[in-house]
């Protein structure tokens, strides 16, 4: 046999390396779009003089930035590009232009962005947001992406204000904005954030709703501070020049030869391009249309409802449960005596206006009541429409303003912009527009059917082709005729431009890869094509893992990596690294990673478990529920009883609270002792996990990897330091599963049985929801339970009865001492143990996780499941049965269930997922070779760890992950006088009681009776005994009686995070009343502090008559 040439031998030896490299490159170059949406990101560069600005107050978590601009003439175009470290709202002359609401990082990236067309992805979260426990994660990186707004319709000649309100989880959240205003005579005014902007954390000495108005004087405000942060180029879906050019086009009028407008009208325009690089167009229209470029329809996401594009396709993709109804203006046929901004129902009033104000009609000298509506009338109506039946004042005197229903535009113009870069080609191009005429149903918009189109194509050689003056042809009976060109579009006809995206919908190329790879593998294996076997395996395996890795990022800001060229370079570097790694292993030298793990690994990772949870443990705010536990623990430490207010006990979870109280007794009542107890329990849980992994899988690698993921899991890190029972329950559950398997399935000894029963009881006493494990244990027993000698069974029974009695006693104590007599039924349903069979999507929450955290490991979990079934290992099958039945049981037994309540079984999922990594690698080892398989095991572990975005953990310690009442309470403590009253939103009166020593009022709208009790005819909060304030009348009365009241509000409770109040929710009027009458003094993350000071000015009530207040 002829010896091969050395280089052929070398190439052959490199083959296993070349394939994975090619796989990764393919992923990088061709499959970098996981969402199926061909989004192009453009680079937007800020001017050199633009700076990141912040307030000078280093304690508060918000900022109000204001810039006044004098414009000498009318505006032709104006845009502003905004980037924020957190969230922001842009206001111009008092009007809200747009916002990026700052939600929790477990929500999808750009979830709160009002400009839906500028979102990178529009996918809904896979797991709905339901009672979350947060992750130890920093927020999404909003600083890489900029949002562009059209300011033109908001600006006017003369004095203008541009305002930004920022919100962040770090103090002094900075913003950066840059833009330009083009004036009528060609002048340009640059707008950039710099130290000329006024900046205060709260609108100082100005009403909260009015600080953005140009009439307000803010000269006493401090100047903004420049934040030393580099201004790098930003990314955006918006083509760079789209907003930077004034709309310059003529109307194209749809006038049929027979003058019949009640039919559709189609127009085409052709144009030549040589080498197009980027292109966009904007279309102005008064009605629905469809548009194609080179025969391809612009694909606009169905979630962008209310667009004119495709507006006559009514099968829209709306929210899953569309409940809220938009405001309804009065019928123009029925306005008669009504006037002003009146709506059909008072609830649908303009949220920024106080519609409950009484209108006094000075012209109505007789003071007679209006009688007819002008519409349908009915006998007896006249008597009904009196003052008594009209508590909201809606039917009172008409005002003299022209009814809004008559003034509003019926066929409102919309200016919508699209990115068409993917659709234009070199050579001849065609744009096809079809205007849809409304059916002739009687009432029609007064606007003629017409459109105007503007746009530009950027060519490779730097020249731009304008689309504003295209020659339009009208499609008539299959032929073409010259379309009627109308007058030039005037600036006052233009509404604010909205960017809609515009790339056509395409099937994600991933699916082809996913289909093709298994087919190739099957063919290769079926036909025993030996030389392809190894390559196909590695290729498909890596492709699969890369796909899930990328999909797992689709709801996070890390998604941007895959949409920028950097990802491709990253893929190349990754390929080279893997090549080196595999080559290294192919050489047969290293035994480092294939042999057993060093004995010091477990303590080191346990130390990491401790450090990750204990680091800055005092920095994070105390959670709502955590306060309740802390209150009980402190009470036990002090009095031996978990009393809250008077005779009310917080007798839940006695084992945890008494154990924590013992810790407090020894180490003192401070946040460190309270939280470090949970941290130590986390370390103990990690150690038990390690032991179980070693015992059940006899593979130190699995034990080490499971412990590592346990250490780095963001959800476990966060909950692992909360001073509540979660961690203790998790530890007990893990022990219980192990002891049950040993005692009831392997029947090792009576000790294991007894221990299993006792630990189960302890788990229930740590957290009563652990009772949900009863059906799990029963099914495991039915499936795999083995018998023991009779005396063992009898002993087990005795212990079982004893445990049952203990649990019954706990429940009885809870019923007698913890539950107070109900005064009413709360509208909400608290999580409790009861049969539940709805929201079945939660069944997947363990395997997906918020932000798709669990997706990658769940893929490997499936491999473990398949392996367990194939091997028939009783241990493994039992563990899988435990996990799956637990997930099902938790979802069917606990109301309002979510990922949060499955916290106790996450370590089991980790264990089985890591086992999946191991068995998949083992299988690959058999298919390829041992060393490569071993290397891939490490690679897969790396992918799992990276899919959890561990870099976010380190950044998160500085941030406030939950709303921060502590800083707000500390501020009040420093400012309050002895006679001041304290009001705080539910469920935080206990927080105020702990931090301030007292609390007077509990603001709760609507009233939640589960948290109140009746004390001598007064409803009081259960935890602190504060008087419940659930009506506007009560609030007004308190303000009128008390000279100074501190109102500490959780902004999430009132649901209005922007300037405009969410009028459809309860509590809107209370919020408006507080905003109007009290001064906003301080804001921490998600919390606001208002001060009602009678000496500061008059009070604005909804009704100014004495005793005439009606809420």
């Amino acid at each position, binding site marked *: 046999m002829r010896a091969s040439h050395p280089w052929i031998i070398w190439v052959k030896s490199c083959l296993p390396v070349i394939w994975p490299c090619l796989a990764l490159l393919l992923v990088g170059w061709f499959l970098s779009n996981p969402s*199926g949406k061909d989004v192009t990101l453009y680079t937007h560069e800020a001017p050199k003089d633009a700076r990141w600005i912040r307030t000078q107050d280093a304690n508060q978590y918000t900022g109000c930035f204001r810039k006044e601009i004098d414009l000498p003439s009318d505006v032709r175009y104006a845009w502003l590009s905004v980037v924020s470290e957190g969230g922001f709202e842009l206001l111009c002359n008092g009007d809200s232009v747009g916002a990026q609401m700052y939600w929790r990082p477990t929500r999808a990236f750009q979830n709160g962005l009002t400009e839906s067309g500028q979102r990178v992805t529009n996918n*809904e979260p896979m797991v709905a947001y339901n009672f979350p426990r947060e992750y130890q994660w920093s927020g999404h990186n909003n600083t890489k992406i900029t949002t562009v707004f059209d300011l033109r319709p908001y600006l006017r000649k003369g004095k203008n204000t541009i305002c930004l309100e920022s919100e962040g989880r770090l103090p002094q959240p900075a913003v950066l904005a840059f833009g330009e205003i083009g004036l009528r005579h060609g002048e340009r005014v640059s707008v950039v954030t710099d130290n000329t902007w006024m900046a205060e954390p709260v609108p100082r000495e100005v009403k909260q709703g009015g600080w953005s108005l140009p009439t307000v004087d803010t000269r006493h405000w401090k100047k903004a501070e420049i934040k030393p942060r580099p201004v790098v180029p930003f990314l955006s879906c918006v083509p760079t020049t789209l907003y930077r050019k004034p709309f310059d086009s003529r109307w194209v009028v749809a006038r049929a030869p027979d003058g019949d407008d009640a039919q*559709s009208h*189609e127009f085409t325009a052709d144009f030549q391009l040589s080498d197009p690089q980027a292109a966009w167009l904007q279309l102005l229209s008064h009605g629905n249309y*469809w548009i194609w470029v080179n025969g391809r*329809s612009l694909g606009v996401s169905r979630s962008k409802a209310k667009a004119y594009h*495709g507006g006559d*396709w009514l*099968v829209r*993709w*709306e929210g899953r449960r*569309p*409940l809220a*109804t938009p405001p*309804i*203006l009065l*019928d*123009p046929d029925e306005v008669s005596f009504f006037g002003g901004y009146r709506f*059909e129902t*008072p*609830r649908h009033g303009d949220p920024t206006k106080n519609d409950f104000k009484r209108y006094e009609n000075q012209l109505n000298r007789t003071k007679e009541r209006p009688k007819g*509506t002008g*519409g*349908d009338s*009915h006998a007896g109506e006249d008597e*009904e429409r009196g003052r008594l*039946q009209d*508590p909201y004042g*809606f039917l009172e005197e008409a005002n003299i303003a022209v009814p809004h*229903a008559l003034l509003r535009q019926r066929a409102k113009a919309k200016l919508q912009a699209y990115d068409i870069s993917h659709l234009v080609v070199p050579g001849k191009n065609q744009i096809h527009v*079809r205007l849809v005429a409304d059916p002739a149903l*009687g*009432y029609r918009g007064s606007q003629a059917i017409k459109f105007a189109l503007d746009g530009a194509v950027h060519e490779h050689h730097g020249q731009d082709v304008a689309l504003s003056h295209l020659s339009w042809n009208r499609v008539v009976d299959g032929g073409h005729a010259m379309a009627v060109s109308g007058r030039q579009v005037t600036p006052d006809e233009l509404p604010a431009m909205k960017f809609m995206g515009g790339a056509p*919908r395409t099937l994600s190329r991933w699916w082809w890869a996913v289909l093709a790879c298994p087919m190739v593998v099957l063919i290769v294996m079926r036909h025993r094509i030996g030389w392809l076997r190894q390559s196909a395996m590695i290729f498909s395996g890596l492709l699969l893992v890369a796909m899930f890795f990328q999909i797992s990022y689709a709801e996070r800001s890390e998604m941007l990596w895959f949409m920028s060229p950097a990802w491709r370079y990253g893929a190349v570097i990754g390929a080279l690294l893997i090549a080196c790694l595999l080559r290294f292993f192919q050489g047969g030298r290293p035994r480092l990673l294939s042999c057993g793990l060093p004995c010091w690994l477990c303590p080191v990772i346990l130390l990491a478990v401790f450090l990750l949870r204990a680091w800055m443990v005092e920095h994070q705010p105390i959670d709502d529920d955590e306060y309740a536990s802390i209150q009980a623990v402190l009470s036990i430490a002090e009095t031996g009883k978990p009393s809250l207010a008077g005779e009310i006990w917080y007798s839940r979870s006695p084992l945890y609270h008494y154990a924590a109280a013992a810790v407090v007794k020894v180490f003192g009542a401070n946040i460190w002792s309270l939280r470090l107890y949970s941290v130590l329990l986390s370390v103990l849980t990690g150690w038990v996990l390690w032991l179980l992994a070693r015992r059940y899988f006899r593979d130190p690698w699995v034990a080490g990897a499971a412990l590592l993921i346990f250490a780095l899991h963001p959800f476990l890190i966060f909950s692992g330091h909360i001073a509540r029972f979660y961690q203790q329950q998790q530890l007990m559950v893990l022990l219980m599963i192990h002891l049950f398997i040993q005692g009831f399935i392997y029947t090792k000894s009576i000790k294991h049985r007894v221990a299993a029963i006792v630990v189960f009881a302890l788990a229930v006493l740590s957290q009563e929801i652990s009772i949900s494990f009863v059906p799990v244990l029963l099914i495991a*027993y*039915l499936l795999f*339970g*083995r*018998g*023991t000698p009779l005396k063992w069974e009898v002993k087990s029974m005795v212990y079982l009865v004893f445990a049952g009695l203990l649990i019954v006693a706990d429940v009885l104590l809870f019923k007698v001492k913890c539950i107070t007599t109900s*005064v*009413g*039924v*709360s*509208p*909400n*349903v608290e999580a409790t143990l*009861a049969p539940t069979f*709805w929201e*079945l999507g939660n069944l997947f929450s363990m395997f997906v996780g918020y932000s798709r955290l669990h997706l990658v490991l769940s893929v490997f979990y499936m491999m473990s499941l398949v392996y367990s079934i*194939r091997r*028939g290992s009783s241990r493994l099958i039992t563990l899988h049965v435990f996990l799956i039945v637990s997930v099902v049981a938790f979802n069917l037994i606990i*109301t309002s269930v979510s990922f949060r309540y499955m916290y106790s079984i996450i370590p089991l999922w980790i264990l089985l997922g890591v086992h999946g990594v191991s068995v998949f690698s083992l299988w690959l080892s058999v298919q390829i070779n041992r060393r490569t398989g071993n290397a891939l095991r490490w690679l897969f572990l790396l992918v799992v760890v990276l899919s959890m975005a561990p870099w976010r953990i380190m950044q998160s310690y500085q941030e406030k992950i939950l709303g921060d009442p502590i800083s707000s309470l500390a501020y009040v403590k420093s400012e309050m006088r002895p006679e001041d009253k304290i009001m705080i939103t539910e469920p935080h009166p206990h927080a105020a009681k702990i931090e301030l020593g007292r609390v007077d009022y509990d603001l709760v*709208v*609507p009233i939640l009776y589960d948290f109140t009790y009746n004390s001598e005819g007064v409803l009081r909060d259960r935890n602190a005994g504060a008087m419940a304030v659930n*009506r506007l009348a009560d609030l007004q009365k308190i303000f009128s009686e008390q000279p100074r009241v501190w109102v500490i509000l959780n902004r999430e409770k009132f649901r209005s995070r922007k300037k405009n109040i969410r009028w*459809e*929710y*309860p*509590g809107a009027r209370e919020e408006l009343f507080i905003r109007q009458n009290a001064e906003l003094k301080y804001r921490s993350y998600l919390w606001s502090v208002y001060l009602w000071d009678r000496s500061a000015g008059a009070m604005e009530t909804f009704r100014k008559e004495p005793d005439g207040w009606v809420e």
Partner: protein
Amino acid sequence: MIRLKSIVSDPDWLPKAVNFLFAVIAFLSVGFSFLNPWYALPYVSGVDHAWGTHDSIYTIYFKVALVAVTLGFVWWGYWMRRRIQSYGAMMLRYGLCCLVLILWFPTWLTVRDADVIGDGAWLQQQHDTLTWLGGDIYRAHAERSVELGTGVNAQDPPERLAVYRPPIGSLGIHRINDWLWWLGYGPAFTQFVGKGWFYAVAGYALGCICLCGFYWRRSVLGARHLFRQLVILLFFLFLCVGCISVAVVGCARCAMVKSEASTARGDYQQARDHLRKAIRYMPSLGCDSGVIRQLGYFDVQLDEADSDVALLYQVFWFEQQGYYGRARKLVSRLAERKGEMNRECGRELTRHQLRIAVNYINSGRYQLAILHLDQILEHDGNALQACFHQQLMALQTDDVGRNRQMNSRLRAIYQGVKSKNKRGVMAASWWMLAQGEMKAGNEVEAWEARKKSKGQ
């Protein structure tokens, strides 16, 4: 004859006894499942207010299918009696086949039984509207202390009625929740699922578990082999069932995409044909307000403006344009022929009527509101929001008789609702009754109703 001693000497006698006990329970459960409805949509007659439940016709089909599968296995067992090594294993296979069949029931009900599931979705969505944060119940808790007014701003009916979201757009992994609904496990099913279905699932699942346990204790090695076979069988059964269900959704989507493309081109005839084809694939798609509007739009464009859907589209169009008077007149015209309409259009019309009534309530025209609510309740016995708002009107107009009537009707409907937050609605209803009784001077009745409103 089995001796007691031999039983007790068996080390596994206790788990076996427990297994036997649960196997008996499983058997009984299966038996009960045949006697009970699998879907129990509450229904209150508009005439005599009698309460009852509606089941789907598919329940009967599935029960027959289960019997057929049982007879098939019995026949197979008899025919192959000399070759069958283990009847237990055969029973396990039988159990799994039945279990998959039962789990497939929601898909058929949700996708194909448009009348029943449409009514279920309508009731469920009204309940959602009452209880969402901002709905009548939350507002009642925030505002009910108003002494002189209605105390509650009546909440509009759902803006859109649908059993599920139409399968348009990408059908990828991110739409996991939509897939769950398309496969039948949406709230319209889970809210009104009957005991029979639970008994059937629990019975067959428990039976299989007990048999698996039996084999495990007999021989672990044998059980492993058997489990593998069972899992493979289960996988293929689910694959078959899943493929059919997914194909139906895929075909409906395909037809809708074509319909949208035809709409874009202005070929409304073809667009209507494609949309109707999509409805043939998924009949319950026809309950979707958007689909009804779209069909109406096509009819209007094709000069068939007097069809029910076309008139409903016109109502929608007038409302969109703000001409509620014209919309109301059209609704009144449609109401005259409500009895001749199909269920989908009837529900859509009820939704419009309810919205008109709510607007009347909120603008103080109570007699007109009562008139409309009466009209709704005459045809639609379980119009939940109509009952609730009619009670509000009864309280406002001091009609204690109607107040009681509506309270009892609400109680009747809510017997069939599973959601726990129904207690909030009932508390509000009892509170309205208590206020009405108090106004009428019936102090004892008022006290009783007040206690109930407190949940006591």
